[in-house]
């Protein structure tokens, strides 16, 4: 019996999304019994397996196949299915990120398992009922789902739970996944990756976001200064991305990226409901706007009314002073 977790590494580290998923799986295993098995590409440095252990995994299974290293979603789905069968998986956990959205639905079909996509909290398991909460209706509500199949699949919304640190050592072993001939039929011709030193938006805990209130793209320096001082990732509103002031991947909101950082600072963004739909899962929201009637203030924890061009440099200085005092 086990709870198995799909995990991956990037830039020489286990991804935070994966660590969250492992911790989530550990909480489930504590209730339903069995061990937490993290599955990872054999090409990933084995020294990183210890981090999976710290987050709550008891076992790390490495799977070795060119299709897996290439990120082929159907090959991964088949590998996860084989592991699930070999280890008597009760629950299969993914992060609700790009890989999870691609692989998890396939695993659910293969295992004929009920799936809840985008869980925001640990499941409630009582009297044979297995219930999982997720957000619904643009963050205006949450819905509790019961999963009625024997095997269950859950994808966990990033930044929903803290990564555990109390796990112990893991035992690693190779899993021989028979995958030959299994492929999604999709070939990657070209990867266009951005050079970036900051945390990608969906994983970022601190986000500084600006909108039309900044007036012109050349004014973004003060936004970037604040982000740098905080160690935050920058984002923007839809109009700003549509006018090409900022790149599209920075656009947060309903049609852009949905995020739930610990801190979201919105500067010169009025707070249209479509924008809120993508950010209202943020733990703390700070709104800076020169219009005291901006609807965003109603959805904020802290508000500052005034001119962004005066406030941002002051806020950046205050952050730097604070950071210096912490060292």
């Amino acid at each position, binding site marked *: 019996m086990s709870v198995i977790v799909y995990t991956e590494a*990037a830039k020489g580290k286990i991804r935070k999304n994966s660590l969250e998923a492992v911790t989530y799986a550990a909480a489930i295993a504590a209730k339903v019994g069995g061990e937490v098995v993290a599955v990872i590409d054999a090409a990933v440095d084995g020294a990183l397996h210890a981090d999976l252990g710290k987050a709550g995994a008891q076992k790390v299974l490495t799977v070795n196949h060119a299709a897996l290293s290439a*990120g082929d979603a*159907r090959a991964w*789905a088949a590998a996860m299915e084989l592991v699930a069968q070999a280890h008597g998986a009760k629950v299969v956990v993914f992060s609700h*990120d*790009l890989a999870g*959205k691609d692989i998890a*639905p*396939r695993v*659910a*079909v293969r295992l*004929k398992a009920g*799936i809840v*996509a985008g869980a925001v909290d640990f499941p409630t398991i009582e009297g044979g009922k297995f219930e999982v909460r997720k957000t*619904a*209706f*643009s*963050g*205006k*509500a*949450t*819905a509790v*789902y*019961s*999963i*009625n199949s024997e095997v269950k699949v859950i994808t966990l919304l990033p930044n929903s739970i803290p990564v555990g640190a109390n796990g112990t050592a893991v035992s690693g072993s190779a899993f021989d996944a028979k995958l030959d001939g299994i492929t*999604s*039929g*999709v070939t*990657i*011709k*070209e*990867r*266009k990756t*951005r050079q*970036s030193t900051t945390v*990608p938006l969906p994983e970022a805990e601190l986000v500084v976001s600006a909108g039309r209130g900044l007036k012109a793209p050349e004014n973004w320096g003060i936004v970037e200064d604040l982000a740098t001082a905080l160690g935050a990732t920058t984002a923007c509103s839809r109009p700003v991305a549509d006018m090409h002031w900022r790149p*599209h*991947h920075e*656009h947060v909101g*309903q*049609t*852009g990226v*949905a995020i739930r950082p*610990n*801190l979201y600072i919105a500067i010169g963004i009025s707070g249209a409901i479509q924008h809120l739909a993508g950010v209202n899962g943020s*733990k*703390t929201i700070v*709104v800076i706007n020169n219009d005291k009637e901006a609807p965003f203030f*109603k*959805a904020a*924890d*802290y*508000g*500052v*009314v005034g001119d962004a061009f005066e406030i941002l440099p*002051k*806020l950046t200085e*205050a952050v730097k*002073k604070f950071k210096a005092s912490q060292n």
Partner: protein
Amino acid sequence: MKILVCISSVPDTTTKIAFVNENREFSKQGVQFIINPYDEWYALVRALELKEAKGSGQVTLFHVGLAENEAIIRKGLAIGADDAVRVDADPGDAYFVAQQIAAYAAGKGYDLILVGKETIDYNSSMVGGMVAELMNLPYVSMASKLDVAGAEITAECDIDGGTAVVTCASPAVISCQKGMAEARIPNMRGIMAARTKPLETVQVLDNSTLTKVENYRLNEGRQAVKMIDAGSMDELVRLLHEEAKVI
């Protein structure tokens, strides 16, 4: 070229929502329903563009929902789809919907099955991958560009930290997002034509759900906003550290 565009009915984002029956059901009372924006703006419009570029083809809408949803299907026809199919059932869960699509599309020779990247009500992003797995077809998740040349499909999709250009053979399932097309507003001729376009109703093709919503809870709004004087940024930083504990 035959394209099947799967459309969902969702409450408009600006709609006020409520639950009834001890919070077990979403109240449809007074709610404005629309075609899920990703399905309409990107999947449907790109399907029409591909057909127009080729000069021939058929764009069929596929919807799982009750008769009350025919208004949104007619809107899709007014935008330009040729015909539509409605499976007469409450959509249940993603697995249920995926099974209807796979069962209907099997053997009908579609070159493309398009879905939106997710619905705006539940944001699950699951149906496309399920259909691909059920039908054993290639699947491109989160595509922002889509082109077809002969039997080869080229798409651009999200990868961690960027995008990738990918190719696969047709037929395939594609989940569509911003970048692929620009929304179209139906014109009067389209609206008139939509009234007489074929809208076929079919019975449930494969009947199982694996999950069920037990209850809903409205999110409580945040505590009243705390206003900070524009000259007191040290105070804001202190509150973020000591009170909110986020820095």
